[in-house]
């Protein structure tokens, strides 16, 4: 193996379809119009020396190293800023150009330290490469003059250093960011970092301060990186051609020697990375430019927050115990498998076949999910399998399959580049899906319009060079009313796309729907009293969406996690159909998925009523295919969903649970009820990296493997199936699919696979939408989006192009029904929950990384007005109470919140945010209503009694017994 090298073409690809032909160094080359001469040269294999150019950002033309001669033109233009044109004759090297370049390079080096041997960029320094490329042999200027290289006083920096001197130009290294350092003495002011921050990330945290010799890269207003607006995405580090911005891991370990292309295990964007290695040690994760979801970009989590894999709290040995009050006993894998199997068989013997079940992980691979659901359906003999999508995007599956015929988003992420109007509903992409947000912001800066429907003024509403045309700050729980009001305006003002609807949808269903939404009680004016949304703004937003060109809807858990989650998804689908925004680039309905493989875990048959590929378990023909392949009779009845499992546990009919990679105790609503359910069970098996909160109530612990330690595939929010590649041996000894196989074998249901690729072959054989997927194909083409089959051998970037999957698009009526979770005198405020950039989900991974510097605790965000009424100041401890329970956390006063609405994250177990949330849930899927809880807040002195008891229980439960040393005979 060696490092995966990516070609840097110097300037971005032109999208033009018109080709131009020019001659470079005597060779004819054809490129799309708009391509730079630099890129045209690189396409034919000639690298023109360059420093300030890189193909992730637009050409800048500042370093003057890429000069060329063009016949018939005066001077020596920069090849990065000069477009290729028909008939140009270009020379990239001659005596004149060589002399010019040498002169430029000599000046650069005259103000650069020459500690190359001990420099962290040694082996990966473009400045050094270019010095070599231009043949620089001598630097005539000493360091006696002005320079940025040496400290004011103190010891000499290296052997090239003259006597230490006073130097106002020198700046100390900034090591404030936990993952990278900024060493101004090595900066050549190419401004690649500044442009990456602007163009790629869209944060505009960096600038060049000063002019001429005073020019400096400056985070914020000459702040440290950590104190600035920097979001630590790493784009600047990647863009830096020198050691000025360098990963701390590279400084510590050295340059990597081999790499593998793999997929991030954080959010549903599914960024492709190169895992750059030294032996089995991970040096860094670098976003891969050919990654079709991320196009070479990353966020702080995927790029840097992988240290949890080596965290001291990671459990590496299987453990068992009889009672949850006992300390854990470390045992061999076989002992753990046999112990667990005996327990589960015992439970089935006593309580019946349906008394056990399992939860698949949306963090694990498709192959791992597939074998867990197979174990449950074929080995346990029931359909009690569910996944964490239950608590996030299950309404998406229900709503989109009812209206369009597929349980997935309609577009690829590239589609946003063709969007004219973006509507974001109940999603906070800059925090939750940051790499997609960067791509979205790029499009918005280029002129696309933005509508945001969200109770909070999220960052996307107004940030650097971006401002939403319309922000509709609705009261939590009124999504359906707002969406139906948008539809009301579109229908009553005659803005619906009749041609599209007549051609693609059921016309009579549309007519029923149009009559329904046109009712006066659905108008923006009539619903404003419930929704709190200004009717004028709402009307303007509806008109913009219907008439502004390609309209795309992106939504998140603010849509699904409600009593009417499924209804809202249906309303979104209605809106897209009514405006003709389905079936081409730039439009569509796009759920932003929470976890890396939520889409995949749903595809793989993780729902109790569906076999892989979303086919109902009661369908005889499909079930018989599985029965034939698995050689076992399957149960034709739907099984229990997660909340139903808890209910059944407290009733005594569900007594054993195998949970893979999911912390249900922390993530599911009404913690006390979950505790009661887990406590009632006779055997809980937790299969995870850490002793998570659920493990406090577990009897068996199977240690898990990280995404770096196994082979498999993840499927992202675009339905894109991408490889996860093993770059190190599992520290726990087994890949997760092997753990499931071991447990299955002990239960007497043997599955034999030698490699996850064989599991994928079985998936492909049983699932029509995956029929064309194989590891060989993924090796060949990188990734595919399902459906991938005979008709679409390379996958389907955009769905419903020639008609809906279900045939005709189905309009469905969406009556607004207020949730029963209401505010009142005792609980006058509404709590809504979400996440922030640096943390992920329940925080099990990110809390065990340096990301805690950005978010060390969950805070309660509230409007200063609500705070003042209650005598609460910023940073005070507050008691947060709902009908379900109470907890305490510290307040954060912010005007992002509307008065009457408070907000918190759920990344930290000590906060116990889910003690507060209730068990109201979506009518169709039982997805919990996390986004609406009536609460009261009051000043407090510190943690609640429950929090103290919980902490004590957790501490007791996590004890691991010391190995018993057998006495010698």
């Amino acid at each position: 193996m060696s490092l995966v090298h990516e070609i840097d073409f110097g300037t971005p690809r032109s999208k033009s379809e018109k080709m131009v032909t020019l001659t470079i160094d005597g060779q004819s080359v054809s490129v799309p119009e708009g391509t730079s001469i630099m890129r045209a040269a690189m396409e034919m294999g000639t690298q023109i020396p360059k420093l300030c150019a890189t193909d992730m950002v637009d050409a800048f033309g500042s370093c003057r190293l890429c000069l060329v001669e063009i016949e018939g033109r005066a001077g020596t233009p920069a090849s990065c800023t000069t477009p290729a044109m028909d008939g140009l004759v270009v020379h990239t090297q001659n005596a004149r150009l060589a002399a010019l370049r040498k002169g430029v390079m000599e000046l650069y080096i005259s103000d650069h330290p020459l500690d190359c041997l001990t420099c962290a960029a040694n082996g990966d320094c473009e400045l050094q490469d270019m010095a070599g490329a231009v043949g620089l042999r001598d630097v005539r200027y000493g360091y006696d003059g002005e320079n940025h290289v040496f400290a004011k006083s103190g010891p000499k920096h290296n052997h090239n250093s003259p006597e230490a001197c006073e130097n106002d130009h020198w700046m100390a290294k900034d090591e404030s960011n936990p993952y990278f350092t900024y060493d101004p003495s090595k900066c050549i002011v190419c401004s690649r970092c500044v442009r990456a921050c602007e163009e790629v990330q869209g944060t505009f945290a960096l600038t060049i301060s000063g002019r001429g010799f005073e020019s400096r890269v400056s985070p914020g207003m000459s702040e440290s990186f950590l104190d600035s607006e920097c979001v630590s995405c790493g784009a600047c580090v990647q863009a830096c051609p020198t050691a000025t911005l360098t990963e701390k891991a590279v400084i510590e370990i050295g340059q990597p020697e081999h790499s593998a292309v793999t997929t991030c295990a954080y959010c549903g964007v599914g960024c492709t990375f190169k895992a750059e290695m030294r032996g089995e040690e991970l040096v860094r994760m670098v976003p891969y430019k050919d990654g079709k979801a991320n196009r070479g970009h990353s966020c702080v989590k995927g790029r840097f927050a992988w240290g949890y894999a080596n965290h001291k709290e990671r459990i590496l040995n299987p453990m068992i115990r009889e009672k949850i009050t006992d300390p854990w006993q470390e045992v061999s894998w076989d002992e753990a498998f046999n112990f667990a199997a005996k327990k589960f068989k015992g439970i089935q013997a006593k309580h019946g076949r349906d008394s056990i079940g399992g939860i698949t992980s949306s963090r694990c691979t498709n192959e791992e999910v597939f074998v867990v659901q197979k174990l449950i359906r074929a080995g346990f003999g029931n359909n009690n399998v569910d996944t964490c999508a239950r608590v996030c995007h299950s309404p998406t599956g229900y709503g989109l399959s009812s209206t369009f015929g597929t349980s997935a988003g309609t577009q690829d992420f590239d589609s946003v580049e063709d969007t004219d109007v973006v509507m974001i509903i109940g999603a906070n992409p800059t925090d939750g899906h940051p790499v997609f947000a960067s791509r979205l912001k790029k499009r918005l800066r280029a002129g696309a319009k933005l509508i945001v429907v969200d109770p909070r003024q999220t960052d996307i509403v107004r940030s650097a060079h971006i401002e939403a045309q319309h922000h509709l700050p609705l009261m939590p729980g009124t999504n359906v009313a707002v969406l139906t009001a948008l539809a009301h305006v579109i229908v009553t003002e005659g803005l619906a796309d009749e041609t599209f609807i007549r051609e693609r949808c059921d016309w009579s269903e549309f007519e029923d729907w149009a009559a329904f939404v046109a009712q006066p009680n659905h108008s923006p004016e009539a619903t404003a009293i419930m929704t709190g949304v200004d009717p004028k703004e709402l009307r303007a937003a509806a008109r913009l969406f219907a008439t502004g060109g390609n309209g795309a809807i992106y939504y998140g858990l603010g849509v699904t996690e409600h009593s009417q989650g499924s209804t809202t998804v249906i309303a979104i689908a209605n809106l897209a159909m009514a405006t003709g925004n389905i079936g081409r680039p730039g439009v569509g309905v796009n759920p932003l998925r929470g976890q890396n493989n939520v889409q995949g875990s749903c595809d793989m048959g993780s729902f109790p009523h569906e076999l892989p590929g979303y086919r109902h378990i009661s369908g005889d023909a499909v079930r018989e295919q599985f029965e034939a392949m698995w050689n076992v009779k399957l149960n034709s009845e739907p099984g229990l969903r997660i909340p139903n499992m808890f209910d059944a546990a407290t009733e005594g009919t569900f007594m054993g649970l195998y949970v893979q990679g999911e912390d249900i105790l922390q993530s599911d609503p009404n913690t006390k009820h979950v505790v009661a359910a887990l406590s009632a069970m006779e055997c809980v098996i937790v299969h995870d990296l850490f002793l998570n909160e659920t493990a406090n109530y577990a009897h068996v612990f199977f240690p898990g493997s990280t995404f770096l330690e196994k082979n498999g595939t993840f499927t992202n929010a675009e339905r894109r199936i991408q490889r996860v590649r093993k770059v190190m041996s599992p520290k726990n000894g087994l890949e997760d699919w092997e753990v499931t196989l071991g447990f299955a074998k002990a239960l007497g249901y043997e599955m034999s696979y030698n490699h996850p690729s064989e599991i994928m072959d079985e998936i492909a054989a049983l699932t029509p939408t995956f029929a064309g997927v194989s590891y060989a194909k993924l090796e060949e083409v990188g990734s595919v989006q399902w459906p991938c089959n005979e008709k679409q051998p390379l996958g389907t970037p955009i769905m419903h192009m020639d008609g809906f999957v279900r045939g005709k698009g189905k309009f469905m009526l969406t009556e607004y029904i207020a949730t029963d979770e209401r505010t009142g005198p005792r609980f006058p405020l509404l709590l809504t929950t979400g996440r922030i950039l640096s943390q992920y989900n329940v925080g099990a991974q990110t809390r065990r990384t340096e990301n805690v510097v950005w978010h060390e605790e969950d805070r309660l965000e509230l409007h200063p007005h609500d705070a003042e009424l209650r005598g609460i100041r910023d940073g005070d401890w507050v008691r947060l109470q709902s009908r379900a329970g109470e907890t305490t956390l510290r307040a954060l006063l912010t005007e992002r919140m509307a008065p009457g609405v408070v907000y918190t994250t759920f990344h930290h177990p000590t906060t116990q945010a889910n003690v507060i949330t209730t068990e109201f849930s979506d009518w169709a899927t039982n997805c919990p209503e996390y986004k609406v809880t009536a609460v009261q807040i009051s000043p407090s002195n510190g943690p609640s009694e429950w929090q103290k008891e919980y902490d004590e229980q957790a501490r007791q439960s996590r004890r691991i017994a010391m190995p018993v040393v057998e006495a010698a005979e």
Partner: protein
Amino acid sequence: MDTHTSTSPDRLIYMANQIGDFFNSQGHDHAVAGIAEHIKKFWDPRMRKKIFEHLDAGGAGLKPNVLEAIASLKK
């Protein structure tokens, strides 16, 4: 009813009525068929058994279309 302790069958009655609330706007016939199909497709047998028992005991708390749908499902 206290939905925070989820004692069966209250929880199931609540869930069934919620399903009814979605389908009711489609008119009686569609609604009854829709509710019945939804419960058949998504409820585990022990949940259906429990709601049938509740129906046999009079079905208190179930809204009319929901009651009818569950009765049709039981046949």
